[in-house]
């Protein structure tokens, strides 16, 4: 396995994009909590990772090209006019923020490993 693995950074960036987009969707739902006839929006991303997950499970390293099709996208949720549950949105908000922080931690660790390799193991 190569340390300089472009797919890790690519995947983490895509997942970070998904959390940023999901934050916008949740903020939009919260801003429209009292809008009559409003339909909630969400982000579909995890469901698109199936093929990638199978690839990793079979031992293969995903290439950058295989990430091209995995982009987060907005989708409509529920029915128009369905009430926006503020508590569910707030829970989703904190979950999303925590997920973003976890992803950033992984990205920082990966970059730290690269840095160690560049410095030949010296600090």
């Amino acid at each position, binding site marked *: 396995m190569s340390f300089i693995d472009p797919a890790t950074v690519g995947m983490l960036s895509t997942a*970070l994009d998904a959390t940023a987009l999901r934050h916008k969707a949740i*903020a*939009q739902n*919260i*801003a*429209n909590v*009292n809008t009559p006839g409003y339909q909630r929006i969400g982000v579909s991303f995890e469901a698109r990772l199936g093929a990638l997950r199978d690839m990793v499970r079979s031992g293969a390293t995903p290439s950058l090209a295989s990430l091209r099709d995995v982009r987060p996208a907005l989708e409509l949720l529920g029915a128009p006019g369905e009430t926006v549950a503020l508590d569910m949105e707030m829970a989703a908000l904190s979950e999303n*923020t925590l997920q973003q922080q976890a992803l950033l931690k992984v990205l920082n660790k990966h970059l730290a490993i690269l840095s160690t390799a560049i410095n030949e193991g010296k600090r």
Partner: protein
Amino acid sequence: MDYRAAFQISATGMATEKLRLDVTTLNLANMHAAGASADQVYRPQRVVTQALGFGAQFGRLAGAVGVRSFVVAQDAAPRLAHEPGHPYADARGMVAYPGVDQVAEMVNLNTALRAYEANVAAMNAARTMAARTLDIGGQA
């Protein structure tokens, strides 16, 4: 990813809830303002909201995002009270007061307050996310 949109969405949400609070306060303040006649009496106002930036172009947030709000006058019938000594009393001694629904206004007040707080929380979360993103590649 651009965080300005996230701030803009929460800002429009906060502005809307603040407007709702202002309008509710205005209605409550004018609750006992009698009018010279039934058609000159204060008409309770209501905030009407509309979602922005999503729907037309499915799949992405485009242009202005968040929520847009308008203030419209409600078509509530004035409340008539029998006060013959009042300067605004008509021939039958009836005085017209605005048809403000006090219970509904109090509910609106609290709803607006909580929704405002939720928007503030969303904006704080966006700020945290943006600040942490700045630390990428730092000494973690």
